[in-house]
C-alpha cells in the first residue's frame, strides 16, 4: 500500500513550513528514522520551500499514516492544532495521484514551473542512495517522472512565460528572431530591469550598456555584466546603437522622448527597436510607439500578456489531469498484481497451461496407451507439478499474511515470467 503524508503552501502557513523545512534539513538520518517505524517498507521524503511530503510503501496504512504524521509534527515542532489543520494524508490511488500531480507541477504555486521535477528527482536519488526504496517506490517514482514528462510534452502547461521578465524576452525573440549579437541598454537600475537583463543575456544577448543619473552607480552595474556605463546626457547616442532598451528609473517625467526615438531611428537606418518601459511613472513617451519599426511595451502591456498565459496554463492543466489519471490507473493495477493471491492464481494457470501443451504434444504415442495407463500418467504429471508448486505458493501465502509478500511476489512473477 502506498501512503503519502505532508503539508504544502495551501494547507500550512509559511511559519510552519519554515520550521519543518529547517527540521528536515538539520536531521542527518531522517530516512533511517523513518524506516525504523514499524510497518514502513520503503520511504522517501521531499522537501522544498513550498512543501514537505513523505511517500512510503507500508503494510498497515491507517496506523502508519498516523505514525508518519506525528513523525512530521515532531520534526517541525508542530502543535496538535497545527498538525491537525496543516497535515494531510492520502493512501492508495489518492496518494499516487497526489504524487503524480506534484511531480507534474500541477500542485505548484506557479502551475507548470519546471523546478519541482528536479526536486522530486533529487529526493528520489537521496532515498535510492540510502537503499530506502524498493520495488514499489522505484516503479512509482519512474512512473511519476514519466507522467511529468508526458504532461510537459503533451500539454502546453509550461509553454508560455508567466513572469514579466520572461514575457519581455519572448517578445524580443519575436522581433529579432535570435538575440545573439543584440545590444541592450538598461536605463536606471531596478530589480526587474536587472532580472530581465539577466534573462536576455541567458538567451544570447550581448553588449550591455547601463545608463544612470549617477555615473558611479551605472558603472557599478555595468561591471556586473561587463558592459559599459553612460550618463543620462549621453542617452541620445546610446539609443542609436542598441536594439533593446529596458527602462526603470524613478524619474517623474519622460526620460526618452518621442523626438529622441525618432531621431535615433534615422541614424540607425530604421533598424528595429524594442523598448521596454517597466517604470511607474513611465520613462518612455508612449507616443514613441507610433513610430514605424519601434515596439514599445509598458508594464501593463507585459502584465496583460502574462495574465493571458496564466489563463492558458489553467486551461491546459485540465488536459494534464487526464494524463495523471491514466498513469495512476496503470500504476495502481500493477501494484495490485503484487499481492499474493492473484500471483498464486496466475502461477497455477501458467503451469497448468504448460502441462496441457506438453500433453498435447505427446498425444501421438499416448493415444496408443490403455485408458488405465493414461490415467496413471496424468496422475503422475499432476502429482509432480503440485509437489513443485507447493513450496513457492505456501511461502507466498505465509508472507502475505505477515504483510511482507511484495518482494517475494515480485520475484515469483519474474522467475516464472508471469508478466510476459
Amino acid at each position, binding site marked *: 500500500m502506498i501512503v503519502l503524508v505532508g503539508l504544502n503552501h495551501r494547507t500550512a502557513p509559511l511559519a510552519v513550513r519554515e520550521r519543518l523545512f529547517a527540521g528536515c534539513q538539520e536531521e542527518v538520518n531522517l530516512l533511517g528514522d523513518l524506516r525504523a517505524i514499524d510497518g514502513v517498507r520503503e520511504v522517501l521524503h521531499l522537501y522544498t520551500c513550498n512543501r514537505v511530503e513523505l511517500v512510503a510503501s507500508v503494510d498497515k496504512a491507517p496506523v502508519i499514516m498516523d505514525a508518519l504524521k506525528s513523525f512530521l509534527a515532531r520534526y517541525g515542532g508542530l502543535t496538535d492544532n497545527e498538525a491537525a489543520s496543516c497535515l494531510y494524508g492520502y493512501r492508495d490511488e489518492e496518494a499516487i495521484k497526489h504524487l503524480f500531480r506534484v511531480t507534474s507541477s500541477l500542485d505548484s504555486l506557479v502551475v507548470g514551473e519546471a523546478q519541482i521535477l528536479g526536486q522530486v528527482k533529487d529526493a528520489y536519488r537521496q532515498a535510492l542512495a540510502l537503499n530506502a526504496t524498493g520495488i514499489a517506490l522505484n516503479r512509482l517514482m519512474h512512473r511519476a517522472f514519466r507522467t511529468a514528462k508526458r504532461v510537459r510534452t503533451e500539454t502546453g502547461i509550461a509553454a508560455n512565460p508567466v513572469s514579466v521578465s520572461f514575457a519581455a524576452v*519572448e517578445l524580443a525573440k519575436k522581433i529579432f528572431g535570435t538575440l545573439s549579437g543584440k545590444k541592450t541598454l538598461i536605463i536606471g537600475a531596478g530589480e526587474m530591469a536587472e532580472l530581465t537583463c539577466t534573462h536576455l543575456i541567458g538567451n544570447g544577448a550581448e553588449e550591455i550598456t547601463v545608463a544612470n543619473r549617477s555615473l558611479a552607480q551605472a558603472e557599478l552595474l555595468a561591471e556586473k555584466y561587463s558592459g559599459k556605463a553612460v550618463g543620462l546626457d549621453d542617452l541620445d547616442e546610446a539609443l542609436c546603437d542598441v536594439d533593446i532598451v529596458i527602462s526603470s528609473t524613478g524619474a517623474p517625467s519622460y526620460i526618452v522622448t518621442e523626438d529622441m526615438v525618432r531621431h535615433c531611428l534615422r541614424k540607425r537606418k530604421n*533598424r528595429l527597436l524594442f523598448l521596454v518601459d517597466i517604470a511607474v511613472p513611465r520613462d518612455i513617451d508612449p507616443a514613441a510607439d507610433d513610430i514605424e519599426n519601434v515596439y514599445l511595451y509598458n508594464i501593463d502591456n507585459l502584465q496583460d500578456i502574462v495574465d493571458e498565459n496564466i489563463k492558458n496554463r489553467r486551461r491546459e492543466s485540465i488536459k494534464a489531469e487526464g494524463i495523471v489519471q491514466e498513469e495512476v490507473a496503470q500504476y495502481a493495477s500493477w501494484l495490485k498484481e503484487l499481492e499474493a493471491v492473484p500471483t498464486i492464481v496466475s502461477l497455477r494457470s501458467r503451469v497448468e497451461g504448460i502441462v496441457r501443451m506438453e500433453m498435447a504434444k505427446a498425444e501421438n504415442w499416448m493415444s496408443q496407451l490403455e485408458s488405465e495407463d493414461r490415467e496413471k500418467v496424468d496422475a503422475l504429471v499432476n502429482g509432480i507439478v503440485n509437489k513443485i508448486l507447493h513450496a513457492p505458493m505456501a511461502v507466498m501465502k505465509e508472507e502475505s499474511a505477515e504483510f511482507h509478500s511484495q518482494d517475494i511476489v515480485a520475484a515469483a512473477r519474474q522467475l516464472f515470467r508471469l508478466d510476459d
Partner: protein
Amino acid sequence: MTSLEITLFVLALTGCTLATVGYLLSLLVKKIVLAKASTWILAAGFVFLTLNLLLAAVHSSGWENFGSRHFLSIYAWAIAGIYLGLQFKTKTRLLGTFIAPLILLFLIAAAGQGSDKNLVPIQWQGWLTTVHLVLAIAGEALFVLASAAGAMFMIQNNLLKNKKPGKMGRLLPSLSDLDRINHLGLLWGFPLLTLGMIGGTIYAAFVWGGLWPADPKVIWSFAVWIVYGFLLHQRLAIGWKGARMAVLSCVAFLLFLLSALFIRFCVATVHNFI
C-alpha cells in the same frame, strides 16, 4: 511524356498538396510542428519535380523546346526551390502557408496543360529564349517570396503593435527573419529579372529588329522592373526597413499580379504562352 515522368509529376503534385494542407492546418491548430513536417514534405515534392524536369529535358527536345506544362512547372519549381533554400538561413517555416498554395496553383495549372503543347512557337526557339525565360521566372519567384514575407511581416507587426501577440504571434516568424527574406528576395530578384529582360531584349533586337517595345507585356514588365528597382534602391541606399518595405512589397506584388492578369486576358501580345 514517359510514364516515369508522369509518376514523378504526380508525386510532386501530391507532395505539394500535402504540404499545403499541412501548412494551413498548422496555422489553424497553431502547432509549429505541422509546419516543420510540411517543409520536409514540400522538399520531397521539390525533389520529384526536379527529377521530372530533368527527365523532360533529356527525353523531349531539350531545354530549348519549352512545353507550357514545363513553363508553369518551372515557376512552381523556382518558387519552391528558393523558399526551401532560404529555410536553411532563417527559421520561417510558417511562411510556407503563403508560399505552398501558390506553388500548388502553378502545379495544378501545369497539370491542365498538354505536355506536347509548345510554349514558344518553333521559329522563336533558341537558347537565348530559354535563358530569358528562366531568368525572368527566377526573378519573379524571388519577388513573390519577398512579397509573401512582406505580407506576413504586416500581420506580425500588427499583432506586436497592438500588444496582443497571443498564440498567433508566437506561431508566426520573427520580424527580423521576415524582413531578411524580403531583403534577400529583392536583392537577388532584381538582378535576375534585369538579366532576363536584357536577354529578351537582345533576342528581340536581333530576330525581330527593334519591334520589342511595342509589345504591351514588355512595357508592363518594364514598369514592374522600375517599381522593384525603386524598392531595392530605397532599401539599400535610403535604409528603408521593416513595416514600410513590407507594405510597399505587397503593393508592388498586387500591381504585378494585376498587370499579368490584364495582359493575359485583355491584350494581344507575343508573350501569351499559356
